[in-house]
C-alpha cells in the first residue's frame, strides 16, 4: 500500500478527512449539495481550503492552483468538459504542457499513444475535440489528466453524460487504471454506480463525512443490506422519504414505479410532423425530419447524449428557434408561425436546462422573475404601469406553494442556490394553467428531496390533464418518469422504447447503435 491522501477541514465542507489508496477505486457518495463539488475544487486547485491539509504520498502538498495540483500528481476529470471544442485533440492535450516556443507535436503524439495504450482506448489525435462523441471526449480528458504521470485521478460525476454502454467502457478503463497503481477517486450521487465500481465508499452529507464502508464490509453484506445501510447514512431519518428515488436503487432494470394507465385514444395535445430546425453555432446540431406525438396524460422521454439536438428540439417546440420544415400542432391547430409568447398563452411551457443563463435574470428580484412571462398583463400591469403590490402578493403565494427558500421575494434571484432557482423557474412555468410542458434536465444537480418533489410535480401535471415531454441525459430519471422513451441521435429520433424490464438496456443500445460521432 503506497500513496495515501488525507484531507481534513474546509468551509462548505466541514472537517472532511479521507484517505485514497493506490490500486483502489475510492467512491465519494453523497447527494447533490452535500459538498462533493467543493471538495473536488479544493483537490484540483480551483479553490483554497480554509483549514486542513492535503498529503500526497505522505508529503504535505500545497495545492493552490490547477497547475500546482497537476505538478503534485493529482489529475482531475471535471463534470463539465474542459476541452476546447475548436482545437484538435492533440492541441487540447498539449495545452499548458509543452515547454518552450514551439509546440512539440511529435512528443505529444508519442505520449498520447503511450497513455491511450495503458487505458486501452483509441483516440484520433487530429479530430476537432468538439466533434467527438461525449464518451470519447471523456477519454481524452482522462488522458489529459494522466499526462504528467499522475498518481491520483479524480473523476467528478463521470457518468452523467454517458450511455449505459459508455458506463461499462468507463468501468473497464478504471479497472485497468487500478492495475497501473493509480489511486482513483470517483464522485457520484448514484448508489448503483458506486456499488458497481467502488472498492471503498465514503459517504458525505451536508458537508460532513457521515460514514465509510471499506472493501471487506462491501464484500461481506448483500446488496440489499448495503443499500439500506448507505441510504440510512445518507439521509438519516429522512431516508424513507427518498428511498424510492431512482438514483438510490440498485434494481433499475427490474420493476417500475407504477404509471397511471391512460386510454390509448386520449386527446393529442402536441404533434410534431417531420419537423426540422437548423443548428445554431458550431457544435450543437439541429433536428431533422422529426415526428412526435404527445397525448393527454402522457409523460414521454427523449434520451440521448448531449449535443444530439436536444436543445434544438426544445427550442423549436417553444418557438425560440424557427423551424425549417414540418408542422407543429398544438391541440390540433398549427402553431409554427406563432412566437414564444403566443404559444405560452396557449398553455405551452418550456423549463430550460440552462437555469442561470436563460431561465432567470439574476439581477432582478424573485418576484419579477416569477412573472417574466406575463409582462404587461393584468392584474400585474395596468396601462403599462407595474402594480407592485399585486406582484408581491402573488409572488409570495407562489414562493410558499413551491417551497422556495428565500428571506424575501425581493431578494436578487442570483443569490439563490441552484435548487431554489429551479423551483423559481418551475413556479413560473407551472403556474397559470400549463398544459403541455417541455422539461429539459429538470432535476440536474438538485438534491434528492427537491428531485422527488419535481418529479412528483411532473406526474401531477400529467394526471391533471396535461402532458410532459422530458428531455434528459439521465437514464435513471427517464426510467423513473416516462411511459415511453425516444432516443435522439444526430438530430433524428432513432427509436422508441416502452418502459419496462430491460428498458434501460434497450435505450442504451439505440444510443450506441446510431454511431459514435455526434456532429456532421
Amino acid at each position: 500500500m503506497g500513496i495515501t491522501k488525507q484531507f481534513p477541514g474546509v468551509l462548505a465542507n466541514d472537517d472532511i478527512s479521507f484517505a485514497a489508496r493506490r490500486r483502489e477505486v475510492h467512491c465519494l457518495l453523497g447527494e447533490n449539495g452535500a459538498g462533493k463539488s467543493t471538495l473536488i475544487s479544493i483537490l484540483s486547485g480551483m479553490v483554497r481550503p480554509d483549514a486542513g491539509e492535503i498529503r500526497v504520498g505522505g508529503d504535505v502538498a500545497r495545492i493552490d492552483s490547477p497547475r500546482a495540483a497537476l505538478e503534485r500528481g493529482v489529475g482531475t476529470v471535471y463534470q463539465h468538459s474542459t476541452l476546447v471544442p475548436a482545437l484538435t485533440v492533440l492541441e487540447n492535450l498539449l495545452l499548458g504542457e509543452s515547454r518552450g516556443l514551439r509546440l512539440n507535436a511529435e512528443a505529444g503524439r508519442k505520449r498520447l499513444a503511450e497513455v491511450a495504450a495503458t487505458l486501452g482506448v483509441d483516440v484520433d489525435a487530429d479530430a476537432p475535440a468538439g466533434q467527438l462523441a461525449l464518451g470519447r471526449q471523456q477519454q481524452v480528458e482522462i488522458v489529459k489528466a494522466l499526462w504528467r504521470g499522475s498518481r491520483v485521478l479524480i473523476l467528478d460525476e463521470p457518468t452523467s453524460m454517458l450511455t449505459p454502454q459508455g458506463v461499462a467502457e468507463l468501468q473497464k478503463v478504471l479497472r485497468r487504471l487500478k492495475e497501473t497503481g493509480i489511486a482513483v477517486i470517483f464522485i457520484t450521487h448514484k448508489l448503483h454506480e458506486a456499488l458497481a465500481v467502488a472498492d471503498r465508499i465514503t459517504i458525505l452529507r451536508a458537508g460532513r463525512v457521515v460514514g465509510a464502508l471499506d472493501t471487506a464490509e462491501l464484500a461481506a453484506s448483500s446488496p440489499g443490506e448495503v443499500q439500506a445501510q448507505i441510504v440510512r447514512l445518507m439521509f438519516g431519518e429522512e431516508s424513507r422519504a427518498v428511498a424510492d428515488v431512482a438514483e438510490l436503487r440498485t434494481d433499475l432494470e427490474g420493476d417500475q414505479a407504477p404509471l397511471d394507465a391512460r386510454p390509448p385514444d386520449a386527446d393529442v395535445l402536441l404533434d410534431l410532423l417531420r419537423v426540422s430546425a437548423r443548428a445554431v453555432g458550431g457544435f450543437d446540431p439541429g433536428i431533422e425530419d422529426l415526428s412526435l406525438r404527445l397525448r393527454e396524460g402522457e409523460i414521454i422521454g427523449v434520451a440521448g447524449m448531449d449535443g444530439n439536438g436536444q436543445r434544438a428540439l426544445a427550442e423549436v417546440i417553444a418557438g425560440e428557434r424557427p423551424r425549417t420544415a414540418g408542422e407543429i400542432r398544438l391541440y390540433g391547430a398549427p402553431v409554427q408561425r406563432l412566437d414564444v409568447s403566443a404559444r405560452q398563452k396557449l398553455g405551452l411551457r418550456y423549463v430550460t436546462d440552462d437555469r442561470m443563463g436563460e431561465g432567470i435574470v439574476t439581477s432582478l428580484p424573485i418576484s419579477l422573475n416569477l412573472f417574466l412571462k406575463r409582462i404587461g398583463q393584468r392584474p400585474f400591469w395596468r396601462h403599462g404601469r407595474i402594480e407592485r403590490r399585486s406582484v408581491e402578493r402573488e409572488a409570495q403565494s407562489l414562493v410558499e406553494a413551491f417551497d422556495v427558500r428565500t428571506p424575501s421575494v425581493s431578494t436578487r434571484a442570483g443569490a439563490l442556490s441552484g435548487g431554489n432557482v429551479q423551483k423559481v423557474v418551475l413556479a413560473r412555468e407551472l403556474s397559470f394553467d400549463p398544459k403541455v410542458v417541455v422539461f429539459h434536465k429538470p432535476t440536474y444537480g438538485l438534491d434528492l428531496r427537491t428531485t422527488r418533489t419535481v418529479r412528483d410535480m411532473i406526474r401531477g401535471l400529467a394526471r391533471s390533464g396535461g402532458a410532459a415531454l422530458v428531455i434528459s441525459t439521465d437514464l435513471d430519471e427517464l426510467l423513473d418518469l416516462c411511459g415511453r422513451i425516444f432516443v435522439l441521435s444526430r438530430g433524428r429520433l432513432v427509436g422508441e422504447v416502452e418502459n419496462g424490464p430491460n428498458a434501460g438496456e434497450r435505450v442504451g443500445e439505440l444510443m450506441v447503435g446510431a454511431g459514435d460521432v455526434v456532429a456532421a
Partner: protein
Amino acid sequence: MSELLTRTFLTALVSGGLLAGVPLMFTALGETISERAGVLNIGLEGMMLVGAYIGFIGAYYGHSFWAGFAAGIGGGALASLFMVVLCVRLGLDQIVVGIAITLAGEGITSVLQETQFGTTYPRLGAPPTVAIPGLSDIPVVGKSLFEQPLIVYLGLAAVAATSWIFRRTNAGLNLRAAGEKPEALDAAGVSVVATRSYAALCTGGLAGLGGAYLSIVGAGTFTPFMTQGQGFMAIVIAMLARGRPLWVVLGSFLFGISLSVATALQLAGINISTDVVNMLPFIAIMVALVAFARRSYLPPALALPYVRGAR
C-alpha cells in the same frame, strides 16, 4: 471617366493606399491578437493617438526614425496597460474602459501637443526606403509597392509570423484557448489573466506602432485627433478578417485606398468635394458590414472577463 484611369491617378492611388493602409495593418493585426484571446479593444483609437504622439516626439527629438517607432510601440503599450489592469486583471467592463481610453487618448495628446509645440507643427523629413531590385521597376505599381521603408516589410513579416504563431507555438495555443474557452485554459494550469494581459499589451504596442507610422511617415507631423476613426476601422478589419492575418493585410490595403482616394483625385485633377471623399472609407465599411453581415466571426469568450468560478 477616362481621367480616372490615368497613370498618375492609379499610381497615386496605389501608393497612397499603401501609405494609409500600413497604420491600419499594424493596428488591425494587434486587434486580431486581442480578439483571439477574448479581449475586445474599443480603445484602439486612443492607443493609436498616444503612439502617434509619442512616436513623433521620439523621432523628432531622437533624430532617428527607429527611435520614433520604438517610442510609438512603447506609448501604445502604455495606453493599453490601463486595459490590462482594469479589464483583464480586475474584470471591469471592457467597453466602458475602452471608451475611457479613447477619450483620454484624444484629450491628452491634444493637450500635450499644444503645450509642447503651441500652434506650430514641426515636420519630419521622409524616411529612407528600401527598394526591392527588379520588382520596383514594374510600371505604375512597382515604385509604390516595392520601395517602402524597412518597417513595412517587417510589418508584413510580422503578419505572416502571427499566423504561424497561432498555429504552431505554445503561446498561440494558449491565446486561442483563452478566447474560446478560458475555463479549459485555467484547468490546464495556464494563467488566463497572464495570457490575456500579454495579448492586450501586444495589441497596444502594435496600435502604437500604427499610430507612429501615421504621424512619422504618413503625415510627417502630429495633429490632434489625426486618426479620424482609423482605430475603429482597424476593429472592423479585424472582425471581418475573422482572425486570419492574410485578410488583415488585404482589408487594410483596401481601406487604405478608400482613405487615400481624396489625394489621388486631387493629383489627377478631378474635383470632388473633400467632405464627400472623406466619407468614403466609412461608407465603404458600412457597405462591407451590410454585405457580410452574416459572416463576421468572433470568439465565444469575447469581451467577457474571466473569473474563476464566477456566478
